[in-house]
């Protein structure tokens, strides 16, 4: 009898040696004459346990981790194939508290299915959303998405249904669906995990979007820093094409590789990049929903947003709508990153407090020192001091404290952090990644670095100029790159003034 073993092929697992583990398992199984099938699944997102090996047994999938290649012979000796006991044995995977306490909806197949197998996808409930959507009129699909309360998960949190409605109502043709997979925010990796762990879910979401707005072409723009995700998606797109055809869904997807530009995560810069140009931001209006890719009406949503759609169509809008708080409906896959003990993916409904995530899931800092600051929402997000850790994780609550939830990335810093240095870095990052189109961002970012250098050298008179510069950038910039760079700077200055003295 063949035993199925799961060794994640997720980039983080690979970075921790998963390939060597898989090879060792294969070698050991051959040596022992055990018939095993190794599935390179996505990661469950419990990264301190990666490489996390699972074995399918009659009593479910039993986890072991973190497994090093050297551990493999001993694991086999301990009866790995049957879920045998070993110091690395974690038990049935679903019962790990970190997972059990989550509410995985959009990521529920990640780490479970074989991302290279369409059959496995369909066997795990994939395809039902599209099947349902095919029986609906476009307006009904849009209505379902609107009803769910789904808001864009990329950061701007714009209601997806309204955006789709605009594209559906636009007269111009052809129309396009563009998936923003340019997940450039530090501290975020849920898009990457989904693309690597459940690519068909994303493709199905895009196809449903196509049906909803009348688009027959989709583009999946993935940053070049994600080569493994790109490879996964290209294989999945090829595998899904005949499946879509069989269902008479006229929708073709092209995977586009970015080329190292953070701004290309901004939707209009991304469109420029897909069209073959410099990734400079376009002024809005017109909105991409009216005049987007190649000047045509275009749905642009990020990975998690689109991947949320199949479940909404398959299970009904309530599945999303009934979770969360206030206007933040559904769940968000948060990502614990940086100096955190149990870093990983935590999909939970909106409304938990930041502290719950940091402590209950994250287990405090990796270094063991007290957490001093947390940056939420990527490099343009504010730094929160411990006094704000009780803020509820919902869009409006964060906006109320001048912060942003963004894409759900949470980067923890311990008390060794120099917040003035982080403020300088915010400008430096902006200088490195500014598209160069608008003056406040192009020149302001560089002047910001210079001001911070003078300030850190002891010239406290620069604080007034720093605030003035931040005001200019915030209110004068063309896009979020320039206008949000002041968020980390000013939050650092306001919450940690001692570092600027």
């Amino acid at each position, binding site marked *: 009898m063949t035993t199925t073993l799961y060794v994640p092929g997720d980039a983080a697992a690979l970075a921790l040696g998963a390939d060597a583990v898989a090879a060792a398992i294969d070698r050991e199984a051959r040596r022992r004459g055990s018939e095993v099938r190794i599935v390179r699944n996505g990661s469950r997102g419990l990264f301190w346990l990666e490489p996390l090996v699972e074995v399918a047994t009659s009593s479910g999938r039993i986890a072991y981790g973190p497994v090093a290649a050297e551990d493999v012979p001993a694991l086999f000796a301990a009866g790995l194939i049957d879920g045998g006991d070993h110091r690395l044995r974690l038990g049935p995977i679903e019962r790990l508290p970190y997972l059990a306490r989550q509410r995985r909806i959009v990521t529920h197949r990640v780490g479970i299915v074989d991302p290279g197998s369409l059959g496995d996808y369909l066997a795990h409930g994939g395809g039902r959303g599209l099947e349902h959507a095919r029986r609906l009129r476009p307006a009904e699909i849009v209505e379902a998405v609107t009803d769910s309360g789904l808001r864009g998960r990329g950061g701007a949190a714009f209601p997806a249904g309204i955006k789709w409605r605009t594209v559906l109502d636009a007269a111009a043709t052809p129309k396009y669906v563009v998936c923003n997979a340019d997940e450039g925010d530090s501290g975020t990796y849920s898009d990457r995990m989904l693309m690597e762990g459940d690519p068909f879910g994303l493709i199905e979401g895009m196809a449903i979007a196509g049906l909803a707005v009348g688009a027959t072409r989709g583009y999946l723009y993935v940053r070049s820093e994600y080569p493994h995700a790109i490879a996964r998606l290209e294989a999945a797109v090829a595998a899904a094409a005949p499946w879509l055809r069989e269902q008479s869904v006229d929708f073709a997807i092209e995977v586009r590789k970015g080329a190292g*530009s953070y701004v290309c995560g901004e939707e209009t810069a991304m469109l420029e990049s897909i069209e073959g140009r*410099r990734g*400079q931001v376009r*002024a*809005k*209006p017109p909105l991409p929903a009216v005049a987007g890719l190649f000047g045509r009406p275009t749905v642009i949503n990020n990975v998690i947003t689109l991947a949320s759609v199949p479940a909404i169509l398959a299970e009904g809008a309530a599945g999303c709508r009934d979770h969360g708080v206030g206007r933040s409906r559904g769940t968000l896959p948060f990502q614990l990153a940086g100096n955190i003990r149990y870093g990983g993916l935590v999909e939970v409904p909106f409304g938990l407090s930041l502290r719950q995530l940091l402590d209950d899931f994250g287990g405090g800092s990796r270094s063991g020192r007290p957490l001093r600051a947390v940056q939420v929402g990527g490099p343009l997000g504010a730094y929160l001091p411990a006094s704000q850790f009780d803020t509820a994780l919902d869009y409006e609550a964060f906006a109320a404290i001048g912060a942003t939830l963004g894409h759900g990335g949470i980067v923890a810093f311990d008390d060794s952090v120099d917040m003035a240095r982080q403020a300088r870095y915010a400008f430096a990052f902006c*200088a*490195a*990644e*500014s*598209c*160069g*189109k*608008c*003056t*406040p*961002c*192009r*020149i*302001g*970012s*560089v*002047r910001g670095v*210079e*001001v911070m250098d003078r300030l850190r050298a002891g010239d406290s008179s620069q604080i007034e*100029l720093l605030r*003035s*510069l931040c*005001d*200019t950038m915030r*209110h*004068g*910039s*063309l896009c979020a790159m320039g206008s949000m760079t002041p968020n980390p700077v000013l939050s650092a200055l306001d919450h940690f003034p001692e570092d600027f003295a």
Partner: protein
Amino acid sequence: MSLLPEPDFGTPAADADGASPPLTLAIDGIEVVVPAGTSLMRAAALAGVAIPKLCATDCLQAVGACRLCLVEIDGRKGTPASCTTPAEAGMRVRTQSPRLTELRRNVMELTLSDHPLDCLTCAANGACELQDMAAAVGLREVRYGLAGAHHLADPRDDSNPYFGYDPAKCIVCFRCVRACDEQQGSFALTATGRGFATRIAAGTGGSFMDSDCVSCGACVAACPTATLIEKTARATGSAERAIATTCAYCGVGCGFLVEVDGPPDTPTIVRMTPSKQGQANRGHACVKGRFAWGYATHQDRVVRPMIRARITDPWREVSWDEALRHAAGEFRRIQREHGRDAVGAIVSSRCTNEEDYLVQKLVRAAFGNNNVDTCARVCHSPTGYGLGQTLGTSAGTQTFASVDKADVIVVIGANPGEAHPVFASRLKRRVRAGARLIVIDPRAIDLVDSPHVRADVHLQPRPGTNVAVLTALAHVIVTEGLLDEAFVAERCERQSFADWHNFVARPENSPEALQAASGVPAARVRAAARLYATADNAAIYYGLGVTEHAQGSTAVMAIANLAMATGNLGREGVGVNPLRGQNNVQGSCDMGSFPHELPGYRHVSDAATRTAFERAWGVDLLPTPGLRIPNMFDAALDGSFLGLYCQGEDPAQSDPDTRHVQAALAAMECVVVQDLFLNETARFAHVFLPGSSFLEKDGTFTNAERRISRVRRVMAPLAGMADWQVTLALAEALGYPMQYRHPSDIMDEIARLTPTFAGVSYEKLDRMGSLQWPCNDAAPAGTPTMHVGGFSSRPGGKGRFMIAQYVPSDEQTTSRHPLLLTTGRVLSQYNVGAQTRRTANVRFHAEDLLEIHPHDAEQRGIADGDWVGLESRAGATALRAEVTARVQPGVVYTTFHFPESGANIVTTDSSDWATNCPEYKVTAVQVRRLARPPARAGGAP
């Protein structure tokens, strides 16, 4: 920046689609009504409120880069840029507040933190938008200090002869890049790098001269600082005043502002900038009009009259009076000795309407014959004939702006990118916006494949077979049921249509049957015909590649047939549009410069017309046609034509079969040449009268869209008299005084005697900018689009189809002359080069080259750059070869801008059957590799 107030509304006018009603909003409390799609910045400008701006200008799409134009809108968060925010009904916008002042000042502070503080020594001082805006936002200090990162040491690029690029002054507003992309369509500039390192670069980051820059100057005009600035302006600083005038190069007729300093009669020209109010060019220009004006004051200018008894004698400078008396005496002597018809004149399409009118009047009234012809004879005379026969009016049917409404554009026998660059930019813009393009040309001209423009169909006929291709297109339209039957039934003659229909439907006129003659694959002809005939709006543009053929007139009629058959006449976006070679080809034809027509294209045999002119001029007029230019030369060799007044024209270089022309000129007894320079024809002249450039006189030019525009005097004539004054003086010396105090008096007479010009006056031109004829009581504001509702000049208002049967040219390849030579222009040079060769434009094109296909070159052992001999039955010359696949095998190509290359030594006497327009475009030749450069290429006597 120009000195005449040309208001900048910040963003272009909204496309008035007519679907959305205008909307009302309030700017700083001022209510303003604007079309939907108007930006807040433009709405404010319309309300008289100026919002600070740097990256916005109303000839370019807004990008929202400089962030100076921020405003506040009631009920909205934030401070959006007014250039990229569309106006909405009921909006209440504030453009001034302490908050906005602070923001703008702080943004400006960032801009200036990377800009040299050298205003007082800067060439743009006083005419710098950055300077103006810094003042407008009240910036007084830059708090960031001088120690930060900057680009002040970036090296200057002065490679272009006319303008320099100083990146140290660049504020990265992208206006230059956008101007190159949107206005010019060359895409020669780009931003490189990103963030603070973003810089503007030409080409791949090298110098402007190494890039694809065509020196149109759009970037220079767009630059708000001295980053891109004319070298002349750098040398002189800003000008004191500007004079609006019209370009004297091609038939586009661009409006320009001549910026000058110094005394009114002898000013220094600082620069010429294209005028946004120029209705043909809307602020755009090309390298010739924009920069190549230095010839006007070139040291080669002849400014004293000269005479000599024999052409072998040296010239003798004389007074105006003596020169004119000598010329008049000689003309009268010749007429006494050889008859009234032994003298005549050639008028120039370079001169003004008023001057052309005067010369034909001099010939008809003072010489007493009809021996007057224009250099339009050798370019667009078939247009006059062909369109007159079919549509009833000898002129193009549209405005240039009409191309914006075309869905399919056919370009046949024209290379607008080189010859009509400003129109080409407009055409390319339309193609980039989605219009389909059909190119019919033996060569792969730049429209066939250039950045963002690619022809949907390129038909490559063998030279001389246009009619075969056009008839094949007609065959497809007729036999595949693609006719606009309603249009034909309502607007065209029934019988001529039936005859034409039967003719083109014949099997021998199918693309398949004609493929052997034209070399164009039948399938491509069919594709082109379907594309053209099924478009909502299809427009045809053509040039000398249609007219300068033995069947030039036939081809023009074939084109008119196509337009009538498909209903593509009488509205915007359609039509038949000749691209005129010279600035005033249309005008010189309009002014009665042809030997068989009085002003307004009225035949000399028409008694009523003649009577009107006889009354006005107080003379009797001949009812029979006079000699055309080639007939003049034949008659000269025959001994019956011995006196010629040749104004602004150089037939010894520009006319075909040079040896024949030179022999004819040498046979004459009195040749009077009036020109800026001692040209080739002057070598055969007995009297030389100094000409005046367009900068030295008042007058009007009429461009290819029938647009009459003013030419205004910028300086006093260098020789003391403008051309029109010289003609007056000559007429007086001939005993026929004419009384005009100013060219406007001449125009008034033209208007009185010419029904299509009845409504034209200088007063109205000054008021309206320009007028397109017909302009009269029926159309007081002129006529942008011809033939709306009917062909009013045709009997019954019906268009006439003309059978256009393909007849092979006499110029056929033989074993002695196995290749076909065709000719054309390059962008930087102009015709015989008399002007452009006397400017830095020679740096762009220093010699004429012979383009030859690699296959033909290989057979002859010719490598790129080799000297080759070019020989036809008319003559032989030598030039260097350029081996290129732009030409097809069997075809060679050259330009004719340099006398030493002598292209017209090899062109023959073959000409259009109807008008004698020379067949420049087809000459059977042989090409041989020369072992060494010729002693003097050209070999003229």
